[in-house]
């Protein structure tokens, strides 16, 4: 057999799917598996991150250092602006806290054990960002400017409609400033938590997408390095099927299944040897028959010699 010469074809993108069935099956399996795993992992990560954020949120809003004495704002709702806005605070809605409770969140804060259950304001109610009457409404309540509130208080007092012991404009101003301070403190405490939660979510989505695409590409490239040699061997097998025993070339650099390919090369060499051995025997017999003039002895012998001659020629051609 001729020595396996180097005839390395270059890899091309359009040729990467040589064995679609095997390659796509393997790649889709890997990409699908990673997508499912990422989905499950992501869901778990998100749940954990949310849980951690909520725990911090509840504890922080229940125990902030700044305390604001309500001067009896009653119906005069003051909406403190959120310092830093959405980007800084992380979530404006979450800052307008409307009575988060264990039951709402499904989280056991262990308040009794930790002694956290007594974080009440003077009225014995859990601290909220809203007035007592306005509890739970802040999310939907329209933002009211301080100026509008103090104007309203002034007007009511002038009209004699103000409640006895109601807030003065100065008290409303102080209450508003205190709530501002509370919001600033809360934003400072919660900002890293919100950022962390957002980072996890963004990282999860980004890594998920990169992972699925990466694994799909890696799968195609890796399986191509398996499918490539198989494709090459299939071509040689088809040649063998047609009775062509020409030379076998080496694999490309980076191809897998090198050992398997060596097995094939030895098999090919074995078949070639069989052909060569047959050819030698046939030639020897035909030459001897011609030398002895055997074809003239009987028509069957003449026919057999011609058949052997044709076969020898065929074998010679098949060896390339």
């Amino acid at each position, binding site marked *: 057999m001729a020595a396996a010469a180097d005839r390395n074809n270059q890899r091309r993108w359009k040729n990467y799917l040589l064995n679609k069935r095997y390659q796509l099956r393997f790649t889709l399996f890997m990409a699908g598996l990673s997508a499912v795993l990422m989905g499950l992992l992501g869901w778990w990560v998100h749940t954990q991150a949310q849980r951690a954020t909520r725990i911090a949120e509840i504890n922080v809003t229940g125990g902030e250092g700044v305390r604001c004495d309500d001067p009896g704002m009653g119906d005069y709702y003051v909406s403190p602006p959120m310092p830093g806005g959405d980007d800084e605070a992380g979530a404006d809605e979450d800052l307008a806290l409307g009575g988060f409770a264990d039951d709402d969140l499904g989280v056991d804060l262990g308040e009794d054990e930790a002694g956290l259950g007594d974080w009440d304001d003077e009225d014995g109610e859990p601290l909220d960002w809203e007035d007592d009457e306005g509890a739970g409404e802040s999310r939907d309540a329209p933002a009211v400017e301080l100026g509008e509130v103090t104007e309203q208080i002034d007007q009511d007092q002038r009209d004699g409609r103000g409640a006895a012991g109601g807030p003065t404009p100065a008290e409303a101003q102080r209450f508003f400033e205190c709530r501002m301070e509370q919001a600033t403190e809360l934003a400072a405490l919660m900002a890293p938590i919100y950022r962390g*939660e957002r980072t996890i979510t963004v990282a999860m989505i980004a890594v998920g997408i990169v992972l699925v695409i990466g694994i799909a590409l890696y799968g195609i490239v890796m399986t191509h390095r398996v499918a490539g040699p198989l494709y090459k061997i299939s071509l040689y097998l088809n040649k063998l099927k047609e009775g062509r025993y020409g030379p076998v070339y080496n694999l490309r650099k980076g191809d897998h299944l090198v050992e398997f390919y060596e097995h094939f090369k030895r098999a090919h060499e074995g078949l070639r040897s069989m052909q060569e051995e047959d050819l030698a025997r046939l030639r020897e017999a035909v030459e001897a028959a011609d030398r002895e003039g055997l074809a003239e002895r009987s028509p069957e*012998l003449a026919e057999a010699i011609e058949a052997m001659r044709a076969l020898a020629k065929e074998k010679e051609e098949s060896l390339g």
Partner: protein
Amino acid sequence: MADAKPAASGRARRRLSNYLLDKPLQLRYVLVITALSAVIAGGFGYLIWLQEQRASEAVLEVFEAPELSAYPKDVIEAQLSSQDTGLAGTMLGAGVGLAVVLSLYVLLMTHKVAGPLYKVSRYFDAMSRGVLGRVTPLRRGDMLTDFYDTFQSAHGEVRERFRRDNEVIGRFLLACDDVGDDVRGALEDTVASLRAHKDKRDRDLA
């Protein structure tokens, strides 16, 4: 490729000990997939742990306030620390479990590729010795069926061709036998050698 006895009865059964048929091929996939999943799971685990720690720190910061000095901060700190450690343990367990399950699954998948390759390589070895016996089908669930079909078809065709070639030689030997002793005498060595060659080939093709 591992050394195992050829499938005498055609279809061989899968055995746990034979699952690593092509170590370089299979272990390469297993290692890459496992390392990838370990890195990803580890990265996310770290992010979760960081978030949990930040939350714990935020809670503890609240207790720095003078009016809350009466609360048992050390007890709360210990509880939060225990929760953080528990979470890290759970994540580690989940990560290791994920890596093990993935490794086993990839091993199983690659075995279904390595199995047919192993089988074909054994036929190739036989062909290199000039033996062209019968080819048996793959096991159920094996991959590379298209490639195996191509191999089986080529093997069958080559085998059939050598058998036909041997028939041509056989007809010549028969004709020589028919013409008499003088012919046999003149070509005695050649005929004997050709007959021995044909007989060997017949055995190899059986």
